[in-house]
């Protein structure tokens, strides 16, 4: 069992929902980013780390801004790998990365996955590569034993979902809303119903992200069968606001979402 499977098995046994924070690597800068990630790794079940990108199409204004700040602070693809390598020295938590296709392509697909393996990354999600074009990425992912994480939404048809679940590994990343990342107040009923529908088609854990920020959303997701929640924008907003080296606010925030 790899780290992701182990984590979800463990969570399931405890009857909990996996807490999966998302942060942009190098935001607000390299050293603070590493420090925050190290702290979060002790209070969550899986970390999702974003490679900052100039044109993050699937992201709302909060993550866009964080990407820009990280890039301005000098974040590069190599530095993100270095950061995660450093982080990996201190934790066995599963780490997945979100990276836009051009960054993978420019590094060389094979080299990207090799570097990911060496850095201790367990899964890769490329939000701007559709299922139809994934095979070259998938080949490299397999070679280096990295899980390929897929994004799905309520607009994903059963037929398409069926194709995806045949090759998906780790977990399915379900977007709570059809659209982009960013804080929402509620979870659309359609999404909750959709979770049940997916459960009939696959045994893969379902992690829900995009717009998760409060406990009532988390409860609803849990009741309807989700296995994990990904918390991104609302966490990043907190970091922007607190502007401090004290990570206690972040820990408290996550603790309050624990259910």
């Amino acid at each position: 069992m790899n780290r992701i499977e182990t984590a979800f098995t463990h969570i399931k046994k405890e009857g909990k929902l996996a807490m999966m924070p998302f942060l942009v690597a190098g935001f607000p800068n390299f050293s603070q980013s590493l420090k925050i990630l190290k702290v979060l790794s002790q209070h969550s079940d899986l970390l999702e780390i974003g490679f900052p990108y100039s044109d993050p199409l699937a992201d709302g204004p909060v993550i866009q801004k964080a990407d820009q700040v990280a890039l301005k602070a000098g974040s590069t693809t190599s530095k993100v790998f270095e950061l995660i390598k450093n982080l990996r020295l201190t934790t066995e938590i599963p780490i997945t990365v979100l990276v836009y296709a051009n960054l993978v392509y420019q590094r060389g697909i094979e080299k990207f996955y090799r570097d990911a393996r060496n850095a201790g990354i367990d899964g890769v999600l490329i939000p701007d590569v559709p299922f139809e074009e994934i095979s070259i990425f998938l080949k490299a992912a397999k070679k280096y034993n990295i899980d390929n994480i897929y994004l799905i939404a309520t607009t994903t048809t059963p037929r398409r979902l069926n194709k995806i679940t045949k090759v998906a590994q780790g977990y399915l990343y379900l977007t709570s809303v059809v659209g982009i990342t960013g804080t929402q107040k509620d979870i659309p009923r359609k999404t909750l119903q959709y979770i049940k529908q997916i459960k009939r088609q696959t045994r893969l854990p379902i992690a829900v992200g995009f717009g998760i920020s409060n406990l009532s959303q988390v409860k609803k997701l849990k009741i309807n069968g989700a296995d994990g929640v990904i918390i991104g924008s609302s966490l990043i907003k907190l970091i922007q606001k607190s502007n401090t080296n004290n990570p206690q606010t972040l820990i408290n925030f996550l603790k309050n979402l624990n259910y």
Partner: protein
Amino acid sequence: MPSLLELEKAYERFKKNESMQAELKKLQRDFIGRPTSLYFAERMSKATGQKIYLKREDLAHTGAHKINNAIGQGLLAKFMGKSRIIAETGAGQHGVATAAACAKLGLECVVYMGEVDMERQQPNVIRMRLLGAKVVPVTSGSRTLKDAINEAIRDWITNIETTHYMIGSVLGPHPYPTIVRDFQAVIGREARSQILSSEGRLPDYLVACVGGGSNSVGLFHQFINDSKVKMIGVEAGGYGIRSGKHAARFAGGREGILHGTKSFVLQNADGQITETHSISAGLDYPSIGPEHVFLRELGRIKYVSATDEEALSAFRYLSETEGIIPALESAHAVAYALKLAKKLPNKKLIIINLSGRGDKDLPEMEKGLKI
């Protein structure tokens, strides 16, 4: 992705649907004012010793070739049962064309436009609003066309069920480049028959500016198999290629992936998209339609660039010599054609695609040319 598959299927049906095609033809004639003329630029020809024709897309309704695609995709959207249209715009020409097409066809219209572009293409912002469109300023990134496309895509993936994304150039994921090319190919079909009837032969050269690349592909497409017709695409050279501040993808870029398209892209070593510069908003984009990459590899089209300064002087030249104020984008094509005309032996037959008129550029010109 499912929406792209839906679009592809719908477009195949649309192409075969006789009443749709008849309606498209009617709108091209009565609403757009097609065919646009192929105009013999007499004084320019005399001055250069060549025979230069201008394909007058500036005379198309709303002032540029963009309306060809907007009307086509507007009909397609209605055919698909979509009620809301979103679009991105750089120079504002595609935005205006989309707004006009939506007004005409009774569709809701939202246009995303970078703040920088809204400033430099003010008249078009007013026109879009008059035509009933909502213009949304885009404040992220370089605040130009690239970022407007980002926002439009974000809107589209959020409102995918009701909304058709009307891409304005031969860009984006399949089937967009094909759809846009097909709707723009009317330019080349007309030009080919017009030059045959006025000169009795095919042209030696076709010259067009290339941003995303829709006006150039529109003109070139019908001539691809005429191997003797040389084709030249003119990219935005900005302050010059060496300055690094330009939008010449073939001179300064390499293969990459942007906005769902694998093409030539201006980017840094990691693949972060770099900021571009051009005096013309419509050419100020870090990538280029994928078909251009293909045609360049085949050696069928040659790509060059014209600087801001060359475009400005061509802008003035065409205004004073032929009584036609070109769009700054089209002025890049005129600039290179003038350079080419000087080098060639006399009496070569050249068609320049005058893709749009320059009214939208007047406020900026007032600053630059000190009129």
